[in-house]
């Protein structure tokens, strides 16, 4: 009994230390300008106010960046699903010549970091006229090897008899994917959608490179630029950090079961 208490208390302490920075970010975001620049640091605002948020959305146009982030992440998610789900299914269940060789190449490519090709990709998109556009930010999400991998792993567990039965009934291959397979894939589709949405929302280096116009900035790029100008405005910056990270944190908390199971399917079994 005491052992249970000690271990649980220890876990509670570790958890508190881990999420303390996030709780404090939230607390400071409600403080008045300059209030957090004191020693010892205040834990709670003396008079909680939304002034920092009002300023962010009023004077710094954060609403625009929020809309950009929502647009880019939503489109990235839809496009990634459109491209990777059929491919993942095909690699698992359809027998076509060259399939296994191509798949082995894809697995090998999984170890190559995307940053390696960043400079040529920039030149390539520049030639295509996609630099400094939303489309330019979306392009890397089309090439999601991890997504193919995830969907394939999941599809392997679908019994072949199901497909054969549908084929004997005269269903076309496209109809089989659409009517029979797609409904079965809901858990892995939710997982993949969540992965892509969170990763594209949090992505920084590529949007930083591809966007020149401030009007196109996503939240992380805008926040990084703002934080370089406002090093001393802690309260304002904490409010900016809350606006940037709270949407994905809430999304994760709501769907964490899907996220964690996908993480394991993608890393351990692979």
């Amino acid at each position, binding site marked *: 009994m005491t052992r249970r208490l000690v271990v649980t208390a220890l876990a509670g302490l570790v958890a508190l230390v881990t999420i303390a920075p996030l709780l404090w970010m939230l607390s400071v975001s409600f403080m008045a300008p300059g209030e957090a620049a004191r020693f*010892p640091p205040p834990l709670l605002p003396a008079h909680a106010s939304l002034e920092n948020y009002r300023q962010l959305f009023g004077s710094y146009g954060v609403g625009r960046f929020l809309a950009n982030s929502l647009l880019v992440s939503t489109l990235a998610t839809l496009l990634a699903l459109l491209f990777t789900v059929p491919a993942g299914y095909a690699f698992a269940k359809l027998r076509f010549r060259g399939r296994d060789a191509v798949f082995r190449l894809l697995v090998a490519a999984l170890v190559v970091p995307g940053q390696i090709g960043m400079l040529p990709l920039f030149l390539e998109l520049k030639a295509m006229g996609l630099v400094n556009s939303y489309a330019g930010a979306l392009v890397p999400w089309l090439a999601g090897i991890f997504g193919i991998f995830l969907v394939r792993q999941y599809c392997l567990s679908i019994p072949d008899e199901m497909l054969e039965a549908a*084929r004997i009934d005269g269903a076309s291959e496209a109809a089989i994917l659409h009517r029979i397979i797609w409904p079965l894939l809901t858990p892995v589709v939710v997982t993949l959608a969540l992965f892509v949405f969170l990763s594209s929302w949090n992505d920084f280096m590529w949007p930083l490179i591809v966007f020149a116009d401030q009007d196109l900035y996503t939240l992380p790029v805008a926040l990084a630029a703002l934080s370089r100008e406002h090093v001393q405005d802690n309260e304002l910056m904490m409010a900016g950090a809350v606006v940037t990270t709270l949407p994905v944190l809430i999304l994760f908390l709501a769907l964490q079961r899907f996220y964690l199971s996908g993480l394991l399917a993608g890393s351990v079994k692979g």
Partner: protein
Amino acid sequence: MSAKRRADEVRAGWAMSAPALAAILLFFVAPALASLFLSFTDFDIYALADISNLRFVGFENYARLIENPLFWKAMSNSVLFVAIGTPLVVALSLCAAMLVHSRWLSWRPLWRVALFAPYVTTLVATAVVWRYLLNTRYGLVNYLLSLFGAGPIDWLGSPTASLPAILIFVAWKTFGYNMIIFLAALQTVPRELEEAARIDGAGRLARLRHVTLPAIAPTVLLVSVLTVAAMFQLFTEPYVMTEGGPAQSTVTVLYFMYEEGFKWWNLGSGAAVAVLLFLCILGVTLVQLRLARRGGAI
């Protein structure tokens, strides 16, 4: 009928995978290969304006990098991040996983989610938060240190403390991810195995060393490989927290590549950095695999 169905299946297989494969070829494989090609050219701002200014220069970019002290500074910083960060993150994640795996723990799912939460936060946002937490005069970290009579440490302003400061942030941000992977591996180790060792009189450390660690050795390898790659690819952390400073103490290889490519528009030289970075990650990974094989982990 059957032959037609087989043909249909082959056609459908290619049709369904072709869009994704085309995208991967166009936006991932081709750029990665083009990096190698680009690294042998003098692609710069003049070639960007007019491609006819482009020349092949052989290994000149590489030769210049080898003579560039800032490149070596970036390289040695990244090696430090890898050498200190990898054991730190692996040990921290394993400890957290063992804590959450403990059979005496109540409300397990709650702690698992709480410890994982930093991983899903936006890197730029939490880097901004930690820049503030690590503030010399009024940061929470120095306040906690002062309670123990230590500090204050000029975390982000001193060339010796800046790299450890960023590592603390990186460890906080990433340990939850590896913890989940370790947790899954620990769950496959039969409790009876540890129980038997305990009855035989093996202490806590002996059980960890002779029972638990050998059983999860492949996962330790996997997490180490992933962490090495991640440590070589630090960019956002120094960009937001220190801008590579002070005195270039936090310029990483990727940060150097970014500045070379997109600040100075030396794309040929930047591509050479990318190639070298890839070779470094590949090299360390191969060494890890070899050590693991010799140790009997895989």
